[in-house]
């Protein structure tokens, strides 16, 4: 067995090659970590946004889009009286009539951006207990309450969405009355308005959905039964968690594109690295042949090359991990229905290390081909 120090010292024989290997490996690892963090972040926010205890009653046939759904406003009262198992506090049942509406919002400086609006009553706080008012007050007529990440979704400065700020929606001036948080969910990228205001702005006579919160998620059956027994109301009952699960499936092509893009760039980096390594090992053919001649087996030499390659690639993985922690961790990324946060979780970090190890093994292919494949007499005479 060749000493480990042999592999370690060889790393520094060509500083430019080492730099290229580490750089290429860091790029590939960073891409893999980014793609995984994006996938993970989007899945996490959509999974956290839907509660299994919440049931959405929306218009039959609009199960895939709340915004298209139309539900008569009287449904909330009927549901409240007819469905057993709804969560209740101080004699009030957790049933919230909502309008979900997407439109452009304008700021004083002329900035125009697409925002997700939700028309609500104070009942919404009962069915979405994760929502916490951080600053200001629940909106009354002419006001809106912005999620703490709404500014990020809109692509404006945080100061533009502070309490007291003014925005324009469909020509109507709206004052930001409060900022709310709903950690880890898409809700905190939304802007909430009083239901009546949004009904007028959206020119709707119906609401988008009725959301109700159950004491026990198993009571979904009761809500579903209600929907099937009241065909005149044209309703479909959907667990909120299932709705966001559907959205997650809807965004799957986007996530696949992320992987394909990362894969293509990484493939370029890998092939470039392989090419460089193949050429760079030319001067060491005779050295390897000499080591074979004095008794070291090909397997021993191959193992030493694996050590060398893995060390270089793991150094790249380390560099990429530091870059990921500094550049990616905690960053919020906007997408069509909200924002999600990139997190370098243990899974993402482990994937980075595994990619580094994998690259180390791929990286050993060129030196193996270049140095160990030729027959010994030929290799000894190679220049």
């Amino acid at each position, binding site marked *: 067995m060749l000493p480990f120090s042999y592999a370690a010292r060889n790393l520094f024989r060509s500083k430019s090659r080492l730099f290229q290997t580490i750089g290429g490996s860091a790029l590939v690892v960073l891409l893999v970590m980014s793609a995984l963090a994006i996938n993970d972040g989007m899945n996490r926010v959509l999974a956290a946004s839907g509660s299994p205890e919440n049931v959405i009653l929306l218009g039959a046939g609009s199960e895939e889009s709340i915004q298209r759904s139309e539900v008569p406003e009287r449904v909330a009262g009927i549901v409240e009286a007819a469905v057993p198992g709804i969560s209740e506090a101080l004699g009030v049942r957790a049933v919230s009539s909502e309008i979900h509406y997407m439109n452009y919002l304008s700021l004083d400086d002329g900035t125009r951006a697409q925002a997700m609006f939700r028309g609500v009553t104070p009942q919404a706080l009962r069915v979405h207990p994760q929502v916490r008012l951080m600053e200001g007050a629940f909106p009354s007529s002419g006001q809106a309450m912005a999620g703490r990440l709404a500014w990020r979704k809109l692509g404006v400065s945080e100061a533009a969405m502070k309490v007291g700020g003014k925005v324009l929606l469909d020509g109507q001036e709206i004052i930001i009355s409060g900022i709310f948080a709903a950690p880890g969910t898409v809700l905190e990228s939304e802007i909430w308005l009083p239901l009546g205001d949004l009904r007028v702005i959206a020119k709707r006579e119906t609401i988008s959905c009725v959301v109700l919160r159950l004491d026990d998620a198993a009571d979904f059956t009761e809500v579903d039964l209600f929907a099937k027994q*009241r*065909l005149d109301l044209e309703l479909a009952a959907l667990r909120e968690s299932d709705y966001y699960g559907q959205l997650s499936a809807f965004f799957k092509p986007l996530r696949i594109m992320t992987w394909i893009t990362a894969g293509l760039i990484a493939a370029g980096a890998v092939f470039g690295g392989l090419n460089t390594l193949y050429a760079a090992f030319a001067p060491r053919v005779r050295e390897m042949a000499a080591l074979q001649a004095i008794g070291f087996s090909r397997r021993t030499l191959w193992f030493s090359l694996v050590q060398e390659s893995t060390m270089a690639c793991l150094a790249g993985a380390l560099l990429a991990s530091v870059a990921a922690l500094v550049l990616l961790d905690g960053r919020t990324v906007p997408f069509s229905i909200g924002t999600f946060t990139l997190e370098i979780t243990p899974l993402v970090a482990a994937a980075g290390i595994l990619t580094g190890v994998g690259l180390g093994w791929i990286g050993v292919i060129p030196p193996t081909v270049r140095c160990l494949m030729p027959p010994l007499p030929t290799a000894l005479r190679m220049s």
Partner: protein
Amino acid sequence: MKTTIILIASSVFLVSCNAKKAETPPAANPAKPSAALEKVLSTVPTGTPRSIAASRDSLKPGDEVTLSGRIMGTKSPFVDGRAVFVLGDPELLTPCNENPGDNCETPWDTCCDSPEDKKKGTASIQIVGEDGRVLKEGLEGIAGIEKLATLTVSGKVADGSNPDLLIVNATALQVRK
């Protein structure tokens, strides 16, 4: 050798990442039907079957009625753990896959029909116990009751029914082959 490396690497990227899950058969109810349900399933409907759309205006709660139709009209016509389903009128509603060139994956939702036709052409069929409440057992998969199955149902129009809402408490049910 270079070619081999390129081929191996390419195959890694070209491997399909969207392998289709194996199709699972429709959920069957493994539990034995209760006596109340068994009674309804073993009773042959009587009377001339009427269409849902044609009869709904004339029916009142308490009327005896025999309807024929297909289980359709909504994306999920059954309720898990409850003896109820949505019956659709085939004279008014058409499963989407029966339209030429339509390969809809959920033809029983009759998504090609208008909401007005769906409202007019559907009825809730439920099986209730002696206490008047819907039996707490699912129907899907029992005795051939499945999405798009054609069946005949006899029963009594339930309280609360009106021309906009037709609910039938089934006393006899037969799936037509």
